[in-house]
């Protein structure tokens, strides 16, 4: 579904660190470096406050509490001993420490909130940029590019993949960088607290890191197997669902259930492997943690006894140890986020690196004044090399004339339309307008001069007005009103609840085929184009609508240069010239009467495609 083969996906999925990719991603972060800087400040502040809490605790225990306790000469602590008179001073100082602790924790709460907001803002800022940039780039792609890719996969690029990148910038990159900062900072602090204990921690750390990293590799491989098995399982499920009729008609329910059970079995076994890994990993890490802590108690206990370590510092050490071990433990988790994000960014960059073939030239020309004389000069085109769709076609449409193209299905009619719209460039020959090769024009600018009416024209979610205007600056309310009348679509709109403001497409009113066709003509007329491209619908409509469509078509073509893929008799009759295409070649041309007289291909086609209409016309 993603537009990649399985093999490609596998290659993409295995990459876990890619400096070049990262550099490129950071390019998108650059415009927001101030936000990133702020994020670092907030994280730094929170980190400092988190460390300050245990420090206050230590000062309280080593300060007022310890002073109160050393009061008796013996140094013995007896629960029943009389409490000395002057502990008030110590209690007051203890209270001050508590107040300080409260202040620090409330401030930490504020910073924690700021951290979430700051990371959210930063990630979203980058993501919004990247997403719009990607969408704009996709918009520039050739039609051929779109034809080769399922829409769903393209949508995933601007949604799911972009979301993964959000993770990369926030919980991935920023936190990862800071985790390293934390690990080294705390280690340094531990050394200042008690170098002997810190040395122990440092000595045992490699065990933890090796376990964590070793597990990471195993888990990655195991997860990949699980994903592949799950894809097989779901793929088979979908296949059976879409072929359920065959399964049931051939009474093969048991056979497919057996096959499903087999796939389910391998999926289950793959899962067991990851469960085993995780079941081993978490307890092992925790075991190692306790070994480190046990060693701290052993060595620290001796130091407390000798007076080299105070109880308060021991507690502080204990708290900091937690801050030190957590990020190490979570390295694997960060790694996963990074890996997913890298896979996504690779897919995104793959698109960003694809340049459209049909693009604006360095210095685009513009026909001035725009007359609208269209010429095809020895034009050939093939979608696939070696199988030409049209070959060596030449014709001219003088400004203001209508040329109708007729031919059987697959004769190459819509290819001519696509070439004039410059959806593709010809493989040989030139298409020109007012004597300028289309390749020398800016395609978007060029298309904005054309009025296009397609079969089953696409309606976007939104109001009728929005669909008629399509956001074009040249279209005003007045021109829409005029276009509606000229295209006989005024009644259609008046009938709708809300008129021009009625919602169409998915959430809105339903329109009949004929009404859609009228609106499509209105859409083209709204910008009062010089050149019209009309691909007539083949579907039949009731006679009332048919008459209105004929009139609208007549108004649309009058006084404009027009290329029409014709299916209506009235249209071919009125055309200044008819081109007869057959198997990609221009076989006959002339007016309706001339061609009928010739008794060639056109006469045959006429019998096939237009005679019914002719009969009805004559009967009516």
């Amino acid at each position, binding site marked *: 579904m993603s537009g990649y083969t399985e093999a490609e996906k596998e290659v993409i999925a295995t990459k876990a660190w890619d400096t070049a990719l990262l550099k490129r991603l950071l390019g998108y972060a650059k415009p927001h470096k101030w936000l990133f800087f702020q994020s670092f400040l907030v994280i730094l502040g929170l980190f400092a406050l988190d460390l300050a809490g245990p420090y206050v605790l230590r000062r309280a225990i080593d300060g007022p*509490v310890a002073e109160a306790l050393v009061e008796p000469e013996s140094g013995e602590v007896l629960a029943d001993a009389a409490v000395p008179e002057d502990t008030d001073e110590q209690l007051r100082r203890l209270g001050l420490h*508590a107040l300080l602790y409260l202040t620090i924790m409330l401030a930490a*709460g504020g910073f924690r*909130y700021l951290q979430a907001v700051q990371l959210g803002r930063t990630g979203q800022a980058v993501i919004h940029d990247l997403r719009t940039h990607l969408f704009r780039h996709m918009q520039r792609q050739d*039609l051929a590019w779109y034809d080769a890719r399922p829409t769903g996969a393209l949508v995933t690029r601007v949604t799911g993949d972009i979301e993964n990148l959000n993770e990369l910038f926030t919980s991935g990159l920023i936190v990862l960088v800071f985790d390293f900062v934390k690990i080294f900072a705390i280690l340094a602090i531990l050394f200042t607290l008690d170098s002997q204990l810190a040395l122990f921690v440092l000595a045992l750390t490699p065990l933890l890191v090796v376990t964590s990293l070793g597990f990471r590799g195993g888990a990655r491989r195991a997860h990949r197997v699980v994903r592949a098995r799950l894809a097989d399982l779901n793929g088979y499920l979908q296949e059976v669902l879409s072929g359920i009729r065959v399964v049931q008609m051939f009474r093969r329910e048991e056979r497919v259930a057996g096959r499903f059970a087999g796939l389910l079995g391998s999926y289950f076994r793959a899962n067991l492997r990851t469960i085993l890994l995780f079941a081993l990993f978490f307890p092992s890490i925790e075991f190692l943690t306790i070994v480190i802590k046990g060693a701290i108690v052993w060595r620290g206990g001796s130091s407390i006894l000798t007076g080299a370590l105070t109880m308060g510092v021991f507690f502080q050490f204990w708290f900091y140890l937690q801050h030190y071990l957590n990020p190490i433990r979570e390295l694997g988790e960060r790694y996963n986020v990074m890996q997913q994000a890298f896979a996504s960014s690779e897919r995104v960059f793959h698109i960003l690196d694809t340049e459209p073939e049909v693009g604006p030239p360095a210095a685009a020309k513009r026909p001035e004044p725009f007359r609208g004389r269209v010429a095809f000069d020895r034009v050939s085109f093939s979608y696939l090399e070696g199988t030409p769709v049209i070959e060596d076609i030449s014709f001219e449409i003088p400004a203001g004339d209508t040329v109708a193209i007729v031919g059987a299905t697959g004769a190459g009619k819509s290819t001519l339309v696509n070439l004039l719209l410059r959806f593709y460039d010809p493989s040989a020959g030139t298409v020109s307008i007012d004597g300028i090769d289309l390749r020398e024009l800016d395609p978007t600018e060029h298309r904005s001069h054309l009025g296009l009416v397609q079969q089953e024209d*696409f309606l*976007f979610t939104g109001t009728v007005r929005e669909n008629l205007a399509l956001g074009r600056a040249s279209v005003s309310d007045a021109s829409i009103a005029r276009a509606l009348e000229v295209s006989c679509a005024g009644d259609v709109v008046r009938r709708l609840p809300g008129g021009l403001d009625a919602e169409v497409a998915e959430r809105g009113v339903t329109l009949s085929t004929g009404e859609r066709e009228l609106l499509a003509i209105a859409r083209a007329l709204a910008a009062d184009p010089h050149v019209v491209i009309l691909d007539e619908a083949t579907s039949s409509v009731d006679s009332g609508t048919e008459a209105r469509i004929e009139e609208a078509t007549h108004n649309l073509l009058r006084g404009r240069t027009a290329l029409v893929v014709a299916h209506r008799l009235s249209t071919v009759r009125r055309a200044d010239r008819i081109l007869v295409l057959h198997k990609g070649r221009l076989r006959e041309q002339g007016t309706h009467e001339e061609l009928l007289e010739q008794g060639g291909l056109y006469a045959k086609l006429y019998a096939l495609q237009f005679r019914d209409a002719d009969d009805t016309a004559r009967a009516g």
Partner: protein
Amino acid sequence: MRRLWTFFRRFLVHRKILFAGFLTIPLGSLADIWLTLEIGDGLNRLRNSDDTTFLRGLFFSLVAIAFVRGVFRFLQRWWIVGVSRRVEADLKQDLFDKLASLPFAFHNKSRTGDIVSRLTSDVENIRMFLGPGMMYVLGALTLVPTSLFVLMRLEPRLVLFMLLPIGLMGLGVRALVPRLHRISTQVQESLADISHHAQETFAGVRVVKGYGVDAQQVGRFETASRENRDHQIRLSRVRGMMDAITHTAFNLTFLPILFVGGMAMIDRSLAAGDLFKFIDLTLKVFWPVISLGWMAGMYPRALVSAERIDTLLNERAEIEEGAGTRELDEVRGELALQRVSFLYPDTSEPALQGVSVQIPAESSLGVVGPTGSGKSTLLNLLGRMFDCQGEIRLDGVPIRDLSLSSLRGAIAYVPQDSFLFSETWRDNVGLGAPDGELSDERLQELAERACIAEDVAGFPDGYEQLIGERGVTLSGGQRQRTCIARALAKDPPVLVLDDCLSAVDTETEAQLIHNLRAAGQGRTVVLAAHRLSAVRHADRILVLNGGRVEAQGTHGELLDASPWYRETWDRQRAEEELEELS
């Protein structure tokens, strides 16, 4: 909750492992607490003696307890999560079996994506809640009360003070939950907007580009993206508040430890090692308490999923249940339709109306008519993919009275969509064979009769060629001919072909029809077709229009009797002629 209970019963199937797993949870928690108490007592002992030799012993007993604890934690995961995966597999298999047995009418109205999501995310929601979720809850429910109990015995006042911020946290979080839900929904909706907008622009790319309105579309997309960004930032605010509240509340439990504990130490009712127990156990209960919150968040989702799966499991296999039990020993293949009408659910126009036709054994019937005239529906009714009004009889027996295997065993069917599995060519054709196995000779014979032998010989792996995405992609014509070979493999008394020649060229069509006529000797053949040339030799041809029989007769008779037939025949001949011109 009752709904989830029915799924929990599936866990109970593996009750021995499950209960063993449940047992390891409190044992692990106790070991955890024991570790803290050992260290605390060790610290207390420091005050009372100058002897440090016990510290070495303490270290080794800590390591020993930690090891035992590790074993419990390992078994807990291995057993409970393992059972949850086993239940997942059982549930998926049951769902799949159910799906395979549900009548075609069900599949016709449901969307594949929806069903797949029931078998994936819904099953996963339930597994997570009842498996690992239950594990975390039980862990929290044993660790937290036991810790409280232990600490209460040391200094009850302190425990009460510590519970205060935790209670406040609960209130704060509860107050924020509705907001979190609301904004999450907005984020989801704005994401859906982005995706809808992208989808629409990509699908309507011809209009967008054709009108040169690329920039306007980018503008609309940018607005949607910006809206999503703003909602996301609002979401991170609420999340940040939640985060701040939980962490601050947790940190504030250390305030009474500092102040009340400090006072208790000053008045010597609490020793330093006891203070350590307070600190260490508080550190240990934090994540379990948070995990209870996660579980509370998962609960509604699990409930919805349970309902969706339940609905599917309780779906009735109407046709299966309503099927008769009569078996036909020897099928002659005489079919009779009497005033057959059919209305698809949720439609107003009947797809078939009062269709009556006699198909004598070993004769052939062509079914033609414009698109949407009911050809496929008629063919589907023969194999009882749907139940209809009126009556269809096979060898004089109403098909409703026949067992499904007897009825469908008598019919070989070639579907219009030429569905093939992503399996080998041999397996695909073998699907039709009664025992699923085909000898090479038989396979060769079938391939020749279906006019596909040459194509298969050209495949890199011949008969063993994998079809589909991972193998070769067959052309429409190759698919159709493979489907015909599959049907012929069944060697059935009745052969039903649904417009299965549309994608083969005229020449192959003629050859195929010749072969099919030969293969049709001794069987009843029903053939729907778009091209009249495919049915012209049929013993009888039925012309359908709007679900009604417009005419029936032989090719020759229909040329005179049916204007539609005559016109279509002429038109198709003209098209062929045009096609032949070069």
